[in-house]
């Protein structure tokens, strides 16, 4: 039995489904298009905004079908937000649609003029509308491949909230933050500003919880944790009187379970060194971080925490392949130290692996000792690279 949630999201739930609104087909005609209609599926809330947007392009009023299905009430975007939250002032919001269309149209070619147009429109709107209005302006710049102005618009939305002390629906605001972040429109600077705003708006416990939630969701959505995350989160945890060390470890455990954490930059890893060292060795061995310059530091951490003791042969093969990824990584002194320690056991187990490649790839002749167990492994399975000539280690 399919959940109605999916169907509501897709606007295809049966008529009468609760928590939604009826969706109808709106058929528009345009003098330049002859008989060809343009048909949109929309609910009542967005339908009227759609009519305005199309009227700007010269379409006539639509012929609206009987309700066909049920869909989610979309309060996202402006003026849809007003129709859901401030219907008494909907007229003012709808009056802004034409100007917003005009600005969106030139957002790519003349971003400065577009931004001025938005500012003129904003001056005429009720204050409570401004956060939603500026977010919508930001979306126009995202669509026009202008992440810079989009971030500015996002900032203006937040500024309006602070300046006029507007009430904030934190879940909705977080959703917009993530929407902009996933579109590549929020620089790390904007995260710092957001964290600072959380700190002034809420009591410390709530501020910490909100920033942590944001960090986890952003990572779940696919963006690597930012470099300053540890410091920012830790500061709020401290202000909230929490056990900072324990909170660090809890957050690190959560983040390590998310694939995009692998691509975090070096400062993130270094800042969380202690919290990482407290994680189970099996978990750490599976991370394989990818940042530039992280490899030797990471292997050092694994060595120190004992994660390299008793490691399986297959892991060395994976590590070898990992070091081979595209950034011209150097060979690893830590692995050179580790392999002799585990070689006897692995040889006894008869496991083939790519340890030589892992240990010696790219290492200079002087730093590479002679091969330890020339008879083992019998062969390195493809695609593990053979040591390059001149690496000081003959190929098995």
């Amino acid at each position, binding site marked *: 039995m399919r959940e109605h949630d999916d169907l509501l999201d897709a606007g295809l739930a049966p008529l009468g489904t609760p928590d939604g609104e009826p969706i109808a087909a709106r058929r528009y005609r345009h003098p330049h298009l002859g008989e060809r209609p343009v048909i949109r599926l929309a609910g009542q809330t967005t339908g009227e905004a759609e009519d305005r947007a199309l009227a700007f392009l010269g379409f006539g009023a639509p012929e609206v079908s009987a309700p066909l299905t049920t869909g989610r009430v979309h309060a996202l975007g402006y003026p849809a937000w007003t129709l859901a939250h401030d219907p008494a002032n909907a007229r003012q919001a709808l009056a802004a649609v034409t100007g917003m269309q005009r600005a969106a149209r030139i957002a790519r070619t003349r971003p400065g003029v577009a931004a001025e147009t938005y500012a003129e429109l904003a001056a005429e709107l009720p204050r409570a509308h401004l956060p939603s209005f500026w977010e919508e302006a930001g979306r126009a710049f995202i669509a026009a491949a202008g992440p810079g102005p989009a971030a500015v618009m996002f900032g203006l939305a937040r500024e309006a909230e602070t300046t006029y002390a507007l009430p904030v629906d934190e879940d909705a605001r977080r959703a917009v933050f993530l929407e902009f972040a*996933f579109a590549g429109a929020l620089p790390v600077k904007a995260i710092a500003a957001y964290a600072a705003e959380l700190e002034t708006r809420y009591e410390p416990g709530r501020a910490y919880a909100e920033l942590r939630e944001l960090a986890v969701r952003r990572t779940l959505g696919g*963006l690597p944790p930012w470099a300053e995350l540890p410091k920012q989160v830790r500061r709020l945890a401290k202000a909230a009187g929490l056990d900072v060390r324990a909170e660090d470890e809890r957050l690190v455990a959560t983040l390590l379970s998310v694939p995009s954490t692998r691509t975090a930059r070096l400062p993130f890893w270094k800042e969380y060194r202690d919290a990482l060292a407290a994680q189970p060795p099996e978990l750490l061995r599976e991370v394989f971080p990818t940042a530039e310059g992280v490899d030797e530091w990471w292997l050092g951490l694994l060595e120190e925490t004992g994660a390299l003791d008793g490691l399986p042969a297959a892991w060395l093969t994976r590590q070898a392949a990992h070091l081979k990824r595209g950034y011209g990584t150097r060979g690893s002194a830590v692995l050179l130290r580790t392999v002799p320690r585990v070689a006897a056991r692995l040889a006894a187990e008869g496991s083939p692996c790519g340890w030589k490649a892992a240990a010696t790839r790219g290492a200079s002749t002087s730093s590479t000792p002679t091969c330890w167990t020339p008879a083992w492994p019998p062969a390195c399975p493809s695609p593990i690279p053979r040591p390059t000539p001149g690496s000081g280690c003959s190929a098995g």
Partner: protein
Amino acid sequence: MAAMSGELHWIPAEGGYQLALDGAKLICRNAAGKRLRSVPKAVKDGQAAEDLRALRDHLARHAATCLATVESWMLGALPVPAAVIAQVWPDPAWREPLSGLVVTQHPEGAPGLLEDVDDQGRPTVARRDGESVPLAPGPVLIPHPVLLGDLGGLRAFAAGRGAGQRVPQLDREVYHRGDGPIDYAGGRFAELRHATTRAARFGFQVRGGFAVCRVADGGRPLQARYWLGADAPDAEAYTGGLHWVDGHERTVDAGSLGPVAWSEGVRMAELIYAGRSTGVA
């Protein structure tokens, strides 16, 4: 965007000229009705041309939205009321991606090709026995090809009727688990934007550094994700692995995936990986 019913609708422009849209192209004729090879600058910069371009761009976005919506109906295994199909049919932006699709009204029902809407407002399908029959009121399913039996027979049938598909269904690349190892990591792109543009061109959303494909498998909403990178658009990028997440964005064990999620994830990675830069870095 062959969505203008083939007819040209001329509108008056500056200096006695007339303008029309021919597909996505702005064309011009003079007062005597002679087609010009290019649009004169004064006309091109005028209000009439600007209005037509705005209309054209809007129609292109609308058509892209309709196409993506129809594809999401297939990938999400969403039941679409026959009345919805009938209502949107007159708009070519909807009709083109819908027509020629294989649909059923029951998971076990006989498939047919969507071909028209009859004078009573019912969508009609061509059945394999050659008959054209109206759909009953109620939900219509657009099955993913991996779930269709006798794909070869259906392809031959569709080809015989000259029915093309704007949303690839019968000719969609299908991948089965066990076809071979899947490793799409390490694909190099000289600039990240080459990868993201390629993903967008094939209709994939790019979200937070991943190319994303939403599917439903056995009623469970899933997302396939293929890492492209989240650095500067002009920076060199290496693709990461392909993985799947559930509705809560938690990683799903690939062993538990159904055939649609598997096939679509691999298809996405395959399409993007194929465009990687070759040659020396």
